[in-house]
Every structure is written in structure tokens, then in C-alpha cells.
């Protein structure tokens, strides 16, 4: 016989029928059912298969302590893999499938693995990964391993709502104890928040008909709930406190049903009371994993809440002095119940697909269900998250809260208090901030796994960890609990070790001849129960966290049919033309730039102003290059270094006057440069005498570069004709455009004569249009970011982070003078004179010319040499482009001692392909720099 639904109130609403399928067959349940209770009520016994041996599995517990029943559920067209059947509330239309079973849980062809179990001992995977070659076994193992199947479905808008809450007292667990504590506190005027992970409050009172304080459990619960709420307390159900973090932080996750993202509440209560109860512990005996063997409290919960009687002929195997109450309730519901001596050394379950009898103490007891409980394990997870310690209690055979943080109290069964009256008294005191240390008396005769029994005894049901695996782990010296857990996969079932950890600990203690507390426990980590990963992110991700930076000229670029792309957080024109015409567009734009003039949007370049009487000293300190001598109106190129001497950023800096400088930095790097400068400003300077300000977004810049640039800029009228008489490369002048201030800088990123014209954002559109209009008859036109990268590479101008790595120092890039000559202190100075900095085999920045007549060298290709006959990487290709101007491929690289290898032929290697290249100057075009002054 199997389980069935019986008469009686319970918490299910029989007026609301819910239809669902399991492995394709139709079933029905009621509103208030979990997937597990509905399936059990319908007579389904086998809900899944175990992970390693594919043994049939039913439920063991009735809630989050169930390690067995994991199912895939499809609802409204979306699949949800690996749902715990015992904690997932049933919805109409669910299509439930068993996992790890083929073709279904009832008939599983892979269960032949069960017979081959001696080939799958603890550590099997680790050993196979190592020997003889993981790839030999990988396809088979991959097919066998893993539970459930990940769906590719993405639910639009499935983002947790994150709320920030506040309260004086958080009470976790709304059983009798939690209700009593919350009521006492609320009536004393505290702002109370009471949470429970079930859909109804009441906890174990809902599994019992025994009067409490002279009332029926239902009336008592109702009265307390109303008292709490009328005193201003708040109650949240289906809400799990998943973790306690530093500085009183607690996360609550509210389950809103499958397919609806949870609500996450974060709060820092002044006080917290844990009334989280205790979890039933399995009895470890031979074949104790058979369907039909389950926890005593689980059976009580199924009966009380869902009116599901788990069996008709029930054998109870328990050392718990309080098991008689459950026995009486089961008998009242119509079951035949026998209580057996829980001597697990001789106990053995009979029956393959379902338990048929229990062999115990020499006799065979026919039964369809075995309720096995080896005692209670207090749920102290949150106490451990909060930093509380545990003490071993010999009388209760359990770890109980010991020393801990003063803002957290643990009451009721979670504190080892199993007497209801005492629980209520201590809970009410705790609600008022008082502490009663009395736990009452309770003695649990020890009932732990025996390593001498013949046959397999399960500890972790889902992952098939048996007592023998612990023996093997011990033999192989995996004695630390943390090693044991990882080696055997113990505690990785859906219940996260809630049922398996204690019996395994006790087994290891017996094997080592140590008392249990000396073996220790594993670390308790959040979340307490599995939650959707989206609970952690909410909408706080992607663009909502890092919005795109937009150019004032974006509309103009789009008018010109620009292909827009993200570059360092900015949305910039990649090239002008269709998105699939990159190659032609880049070549065309390079030709425009070299033959006439490129008209470019330079607004994304960082512009950081340094202002104040100490500004000059400050910039000299933060730059590798000597900046103290820079005269007003002049511009200098330089590097910023980290204190370890590594190149951090490069760019030009302009001197406006003696107290005002403008640093221009890589567009992707502006925020990091700001933070870097701010650090040194506050560390080494008087912040009241030097100020820095990121003005990037205050200006927009149109850059005009190429042989026709001067002609176009003169025509724009931003400067008087006479200004051009004395306007050399690397200088700055102020002019005007449309009557507003314009800053005109002669700096170049292309190697051609170049003018950067910066104006207020609201005037840049007119400036851009004017430049295009004047430039057009001369052959000039808009040029995007991709072409600019090629133009830079032709000149050997580095891109920090692309042509440099975390080791690069300025002298590796050919900038050697300040290292030797600069007298003043600067960031990173001393690091440029260490043994590492002086090595001759440092990777230097070089150019590579293709020598084998082939195409582009692959970026990332290693330059290979050899040492004692072994191949050796000497460096790698950092940039590689086809140069339309030169009509050949160009490449840049970092090469060991490259500065002294000019003219040498080297071999590059990438994905098995060898190429030949000649080491050259990074500058492939106009080595003498004549174009820049043209």
C-alpha cells in the first residue's frame, strides 16, 4: 500500500483542484499542496533517482530537509530545473518530470549502475580526472553526471525585487516558540518582523491536535497572530532567512511561486531571535534509502498540513522519547503502527522498489512504511552565520548554541529545548530581551551508524554516499570534515547536508576513535536553502549599474549611418557605413585621413583638470615625465605609473597657466585615473592647495587630422589668421566658435598634422557640421574609432592595456630619459631601479613586419625561441592590422630584449601555425615624423 489522502481539515483547500502531470501522466492536487504532498496523495512512490547509482527515491522529509525529491517543472512554457518537490507549492498546469532518470523515475535503465557500485566509490571522480587521462572518461561521465537539465529559457524581467527593511527585532521561525517571542516583543512596543518559510505560521503545532494553553492549536496560532499584528508587528510567510552577514545584515527571500521572481528583503535588525526548530536525523541501517523509509516529523507534517497518511502499515524505528505523540496521531488517522527497537546494527530494509518489510532484532516485520528518526538536530545554521559557536550536548547528542553574538538569541528546539512549556516561557523572555539559560532535561540514547554492519547504509541519499565511503575516505586520509565532504560529495544533496552531516560526522568519529565534538562540523554558509541566483542580482546589473556614456554628437553620427560600438564604456562610431562593411569602411577612412583629413569625434577622451597653487608640483609628481617645466600654452606627452613602476596610463597634458593643467587620458580609463590622482592628492599633497576635477563631460571635441587639416581649421575661423604663424605641434591656443570659447590643441593620434577643437556641448553639433562642410570639397570626411586604431598602429603609438601588460615599464616602451635624469620624486620612481626593472630580457615594445608573404599575424601569437632544446615564449603580438596606406600587414609586439633585436627574423606560433616576421621599429609610417609638422 502507498500513501493516501484522508479526511480532515489540514491546510489544503479541497475546493480548489489543481491539475498537473508527472512524467507525462495526469494528476490532481489541491491548493496548498506541495508537489511532493500531491504526488504522495496520488499514490506515487518513486519521485526520482539517486545521482550515482540511480536507486529509486521517494521523499524522506516533508520540507527543506528532504534530500531526495528533486524534479524539473515546466510551467507556462518555461522549464525550471531541480526544484525541491517538498518546498515547491503546486500550481495548476505544472508539468513535473523526474530527474536523473531515463526514461522515467519508475523505470530507469541506468539503474544497472546500482549493480556496478563497487566501481563508483568515494573519490571516483577525482581519481578518474587524474588517471590515465580525463578525456578518455569525460564523454561518459558527462552523460551520467549532473542532475536535471538546464533550460536555455530566459524569463524576461525575472529579476528579484530588493527591498530594504527595518525593525527592532527579527524573529525567524513562526512555530509556537517564534509566535510567543514575537508576541511578547510586539506587545512591549518593539517593531517586530516575524518570518516563516512555510505558507502558514504555526510550525509543528500544525502537525498536532494536542491542546496548547488550553486552546486548540489552530485557535492558539490565530490568537497569537492577531495579537502580533494588532500590536504593529509584521508577519511574512514563504519567506526564508537565508543568511546572516556582517554587522547584523540579514537577507530574507520571499518565494512567490515558480516563475515569479522572489522578493529579497535586506535588513539590519537590532536584535534577532532564532526559533528555527530542529531537523529529524535519519537512522542509518542497511538499505535505509528505500522508498517508504522517511522521517518521523516528515510523516507528521504530511498528515497535519496536507492530510496525507504516508502508509497503512507503519514501522517506527526511533530512539526519540517523544515519538509516541506522532504514533498516536498516525493511529488516529487509521494506520497500523508498530514501534521497534531502533538497534540499527541488525536492522535491514527488505524490498527493492519500495520497502516491504523491516528485519529487526531477528524478526521480519511486514510494513509499507518505515518512520526512522535517530534524534533531532537543532537548526543552528543562522546562529553559525552570525558567528555563534556550538557546544556538544551529550544528553541530547547534538550541537547546541554556545558562546555567540549578544544581538542574537536562540530559543525552542533550535536551542535544544524540546519541552513546549519551557520553550514558550524562554521565548517570551527572549522577546523582552531577557535570557533564561534553562534547557530542561532531555535524554536521547545515542543512535549512530555502525561501521560493522554488512550491506550498504546510506548517509547522503541523493548523492549515494554510504558508510563505506566514509571508511574509504578515512583510509585515504581524508579525515578532516571539510576534506571528507568534498571527497565523498557528502552533503551536496538538495537539503545541503541537513540530514546527512551528523550521521557522517558520527561515523568518522567512530572510525577515528574520537568523540564527535573533536571531529568538528563543516562550515555553515548561506543560503540556508537553495534560492534562484537572480535573488542576488535583481535589476542591479548590466547597464543599470554601468550605463553607457553617450556622445553629444551621437545623433550626427547616426545621421551619417555610423556603426556604433562600445569602447571603454562610451558608445562611439566604429566606422561610417553598414555594420557588415567594416573592412571597406576602415580602409576608406584610413585613406581619407592620410590623403585629405579625418574629421573625428574626440569627446570621449578623458579631460581631468588640475587646479591650484600646488598643481604644477602635483602633475610633476604623478607623471613619469618631467612636467614641472611645461610652459603655459604648451602640451607634453607622458606616462603615469603605478607605485610599482608599471605603466598605468598615457596621454598628453596641457598647461593653461601656472595653476591650471588639463590631463587627457584614455577614454576607458578616466574613472581609474581620477581615483589614482585623488589618492596621491590626499596622500602626498595639501588638498586645499590642489584640486582635481573630471571635466570630460563638460566639453565636446572635434578632431581634424591630416594633410588638409590646417586649411579646414583656418576656414572654420576659430582662430585669427595670425594665430597660425606661431602654432607648432604640442601647443594650445584659445579661440572662439559661434561666440563661445574654443580650446584648440595641436596634438596628434594619427601622425599627421592635427587640431583638436573643444567647445561647450551645445555648440559641438554646429562645429561638427561646419568642419564636414568645409572638409568635404577637400576630400576630408568622418573617420571612426576602428580606423583611428589602425592609424595609431601605423605610427607605433601604443594603446595602454593592449600593447602593454601588467609588467610593462616606461623604458620597455623606449621612454628611457626620466628614469635616468628626472631628479624630483614621482610615483613609481624607485621601482624603476630594481633587479627586475634592470633585466636585459625585459619585454620591449617593437614592430613586426611579415616576412613570409602571408596575411595578418594573429593577435596573441607567441614569439617563440628555445632554451636547452625546449620551446620558450619570448613575447607576443599585441596589435595586428592591414595598413591601407602601406599596403601591407603591420603588427606590434612585446618581445624580450626586443630593442636590441631590430632586423632579426623571429618565429611566431599560434594554434599550431608558425609564421616568420622581422623585428622593426614600432613606427611603420613616416619614421622621421615629417607629416606631423606639414
Amino acid at each position, binding site marked *: 500500500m502507498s500513501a493516501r489522502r484522508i479526511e480532515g481539515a489540514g491546510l489544503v483547500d479541497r475546493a480548489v483542484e489543481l491539475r498537473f502531470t508527472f512524467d507525462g501522466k495526469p494528476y490532481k492536487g489541491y491548493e496548498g499542496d506541495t508537489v511532493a504532498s500531491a504526488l504522495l496523495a496520488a499514490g506515487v512512490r518513486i519521485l526520482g533517482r539517486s545521482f550515482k547509482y540511480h536507486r529509486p527515491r521517494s521523499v524522506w522529509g516533508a520540507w527543506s530537509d528532504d534530500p531526495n525529491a528533486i524534479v524539473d517543472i515546466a510551467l507556462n512554457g518555461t522549464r525550471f530545473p531541480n526544484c525541491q518537490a517538498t518546498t515547491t507549492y503546486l500550481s495548476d498546469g505544472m508539468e513535473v518530470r523526474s530527474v536523473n532518470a531515463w526514461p522515467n523515475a519508475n523505470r530507469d535503465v541506468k539503474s544497472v549502475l546500482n549493480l556496478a557500485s563497487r566501481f563508483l566509490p568515494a573519490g571516483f571522480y577525482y581519481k578518474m580526472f587524474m588517471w590515465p587521462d580525463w578525456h578518455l572518461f569525460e564523454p561518459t561521465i558527462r552523460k551520467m553526471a549532473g542532475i536535471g537539465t538546464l533550460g536555455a529559457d530566459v524569463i524576461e524581467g525575472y529579476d528579484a525585487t530588493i527591498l530594504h527593511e527595518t525593525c527592532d527585532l527579527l524573529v525567524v521561525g513562526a512555530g509556537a516558540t517564534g509566535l510567543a517571542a514575537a508576541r511578547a516583543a510586539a506587545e512591549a512596543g518593539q517593531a517586530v518582523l516575524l518570518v516563516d518559510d512555510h505558507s502558514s505560521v504555526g510550525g509543528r503545532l500544525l502537525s498536532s491536535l494536542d491542546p496548547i494553553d488550553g486552546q486548540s492549536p489552530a485557535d492558539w496560532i490565530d490568537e497569537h497572530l492577531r495579537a502580533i499584528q494588532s500590536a504593529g508587528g509584521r508577519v511574512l510567510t514563504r519567506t526564508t532567512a537565508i543568511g546572516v552577514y556582517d554587522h547584523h*545584515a540579514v537577507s530574507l527571500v520571499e518565494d512567490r511561486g515558480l516563475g515569479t521572481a522572489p522578493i529579497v528583503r535586506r535588513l539590519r535588525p537590532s536584535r534577532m531571535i532564532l526559533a528555527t526548530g530542529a531537523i529529524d536525523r535519519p537512522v542509518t541501517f542497511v538499505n535505509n534509502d528505500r522508498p517508504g523509509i522517511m522521517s518521523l516529523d516528515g510523516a507528521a507534517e504530511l498528515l497535519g498540513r496536507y492530510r496525507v497518511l504516508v502508509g497503512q502499515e507503519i514501522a517506527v524505528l526511533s530512539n526519540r522519547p517523544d515519538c509516541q505523540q506522532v504514533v498516536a496521531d498516525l493511529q488516529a488517522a487509521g494506520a497500523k503502527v508498530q514501534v521497534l527497537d531502533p538497534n540499527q546494527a541488525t536492522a535491514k530494509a527488505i524490498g527493492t522498489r519500495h520497502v516491504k518489510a523491516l528485519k529487526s532484532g531477528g524478526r521480519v516485520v511486514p510494513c509499507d512504511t518505515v518512520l526512522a528518526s535517530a534524534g533531532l538536530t537543532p537548526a543552528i545554521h543562522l546562529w553559525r552565520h552570525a558567528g555563534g559557536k556550538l557546544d556538544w550536548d551529550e544528553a541530547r547528542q547534538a550541537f547546541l548554541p554556545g558562546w555567540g553574538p549578544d544581538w542574537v538569541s536562540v530559543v525552542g528546539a533550535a536551542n535544544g529545548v524540546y519541552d513546549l512549556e519551557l520553550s514558550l516561557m524562554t521565548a517570551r523572555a527572549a522577546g523582552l530581551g531577557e535570557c533564561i539559560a534553562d534547557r530542561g532535561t532531555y535524554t536521547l540514547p545515542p543512535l549512530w551508524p555502525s561501521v560493522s554492519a554488512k550491506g550498504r547504509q546510506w548517509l547522503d541519499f541523493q548523492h549515494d554516499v554510504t558508510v563505506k565511503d566514509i571508511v574509504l575516505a578515512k583510509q585515504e586520509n581524508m579525515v578532516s570534515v571539510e576534506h571528507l565532504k568534498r571527497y565523498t560529495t557528502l552533503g551536496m544533496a538538495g537539503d545541503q547536508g541537513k540530514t546527512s552531516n551528523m550521521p557522517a560526522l558520527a561515523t568518522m568519529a567512530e572510525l577515528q576513535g574520537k568523540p564527535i565534538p573533536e571531529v568538528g562540523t563543516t562550515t555553515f554558509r548561506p543560503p540556508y536553502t537553495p534560492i534562484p541566483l537572480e535573488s542576488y542580482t535583481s535589476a542591479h546589473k548590466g547597464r543599470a549599474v554601468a550605463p553607457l556614456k553617450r556622445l553629444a554628437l551621437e545623433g550626427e553620427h547616426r545621421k551619417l549611418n555610423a556603426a556604433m560600438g562600445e569602447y571603454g564604456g562610451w558608445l562611439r562610431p566604429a566606422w561610417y557605413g553598414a555594420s557588415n562593411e567594416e573592412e571597406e569602411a576602415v580602409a576608406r577612412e584610413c585613406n581619407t585621413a592620410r590623403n585629405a583629413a579625418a574629421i573625428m569625434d574626440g569627446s570621449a577622451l578623458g579631460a581631468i583638470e588640475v587646479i591650484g597653487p600646488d598643481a604644477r608640483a602635483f602633475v610633476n609628481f604623478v607623471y613619469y615625465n618631467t612636467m614641472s617645466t611645461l610652459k603655459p600654452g604648451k602640451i607634453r606627452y607622458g606616462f603615469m605609473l603605478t607605485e610599482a613602476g608599471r605603466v598605468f596610463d598615457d596621454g598628453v597634458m596641457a598647461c593653461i597657466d601656472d595653476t591650471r593643467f588639463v590631463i587627457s587620458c584614455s577614454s576607458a580609463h578616466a574613472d581609474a585615473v581620477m581615483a589614482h590622482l585623488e589618492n596621491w592628492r590626499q596622500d602626498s599633497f595639501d588638498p586645499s592647495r590642489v584640486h582635481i576635477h573630471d571635466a570630460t563631460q563638460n566639453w565636446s571635441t572635434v578632431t581634424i587630422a591630416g594633410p588638409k587639416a590646417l586649411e579646414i581649421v583656418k576656414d572654420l575661423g576659430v582662430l585669427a589668421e595670425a594665430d597660425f604663424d606661431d602654432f607648432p605641434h604640442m601647443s594650445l591656443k584659445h579661440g572662439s566658435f559661434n561666440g563661445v570659447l574654443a580650446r584648440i590643441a595641436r596634438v596628434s593620434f594619427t601622425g599627421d598634422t592635427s587640431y583638436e577643437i573643444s567647445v561647450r556641448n551645445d555648440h559641438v553639433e554646429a562645429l561638427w557640421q561646419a568642419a564636414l562642410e568645409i572638409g568635404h570639397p577637400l576630400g576630408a570626411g568622418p573617420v571612426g574609432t576602428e580606423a583611428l586604431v589602425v592609424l595609431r598602429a601605423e605610427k607605433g603609438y601604443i594603446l595602454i592595456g593592449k600593447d602593454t601588460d601588467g609588467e610593462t615599464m616606461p623604458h620597455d616602451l623606449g621612454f628611457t630619459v626620466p628614469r635616468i635624469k628626472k631628479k624630483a620624486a614621482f610615483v613609481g620612481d*624607485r621601482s624603476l631601479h630594481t633587479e627586475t626593472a634592470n633585466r636585459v630580457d625585459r619585454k620591449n615594445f617593437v614592430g613586426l613586419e611579415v616576412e613570409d608573404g602571408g596575411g595578418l599575424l594573429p593577435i596573441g601569437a607567441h614569439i617563440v625561441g628555445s632554451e636547452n632544446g625546449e620551446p620558450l615564449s619570448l613575447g607576443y603580438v599585441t596589435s595586428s592590422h592591414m595598413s591601407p596606406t602601406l599596403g601591407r600587414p603591420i603588427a606590434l609586439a612585446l618581445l624580450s630584449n626586443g630593442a636590441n633585436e631590430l632586423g632579426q627574423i623571429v618565429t611566431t606560433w599560434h594554434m599550431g601555425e608558425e609564421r616568420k616576421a622581422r623585428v622593426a621599429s614600432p613606427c611603420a609610417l613616416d619614421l622621421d615624423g615629417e607629416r606631423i609638422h606639414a
Partner: protein
Amino acid sequence: MQRFPCPFCGPRDEREFHFAGEADKDRPDTTQDISDEAWADYLFNCKNSCGPTREIWVHFPCQEYFIMERDTVTMSVAGTTSVRKDLT
């Protein structure tokens, strides 16, 4: 998630802060000779104390660096002080 008191903005969530180094570690005068060992001490070696520490942190929204005294075992924060001479 820890909560730190910025000396300028008050208590804020940990994610707004960034660790910047051990406190009381002055930059050596690099215009003078400094041994490799002394430089390495300044640059890389830290006490990494188990227990009470003094550290430099930065609060990103206001960009101010400050000293925080806290305990790396209990995670309790004893207090924060500005490093700004004009504010202390």
C-alpha cells in the same frame, strides 16, 4: 555586507568603499637612497593583522580617503577619522 562610517557621509554600505592600504605607512623620500628591502617593505609587505588594525579606506561617492580602525576577527569597527589636516 558590512557598514562603515564615512567621516564625511556617515554610515554607508561596504560596497561604496574600497580598501586603500595599511595606515601609518609613509612613502619614503625617493630622492634619497632607499634599499630594495625598504622599498619592498613599503610597497608590498603588510602586517595583515589578525585582530585590531588601522587601515586607509576610500569612500567612492565623496572620494575622501580616511583612516578606519577595525578588528579583522570580529569585524567590528572602532571608528574612522579623516586624514585631512584642515579637518582634524
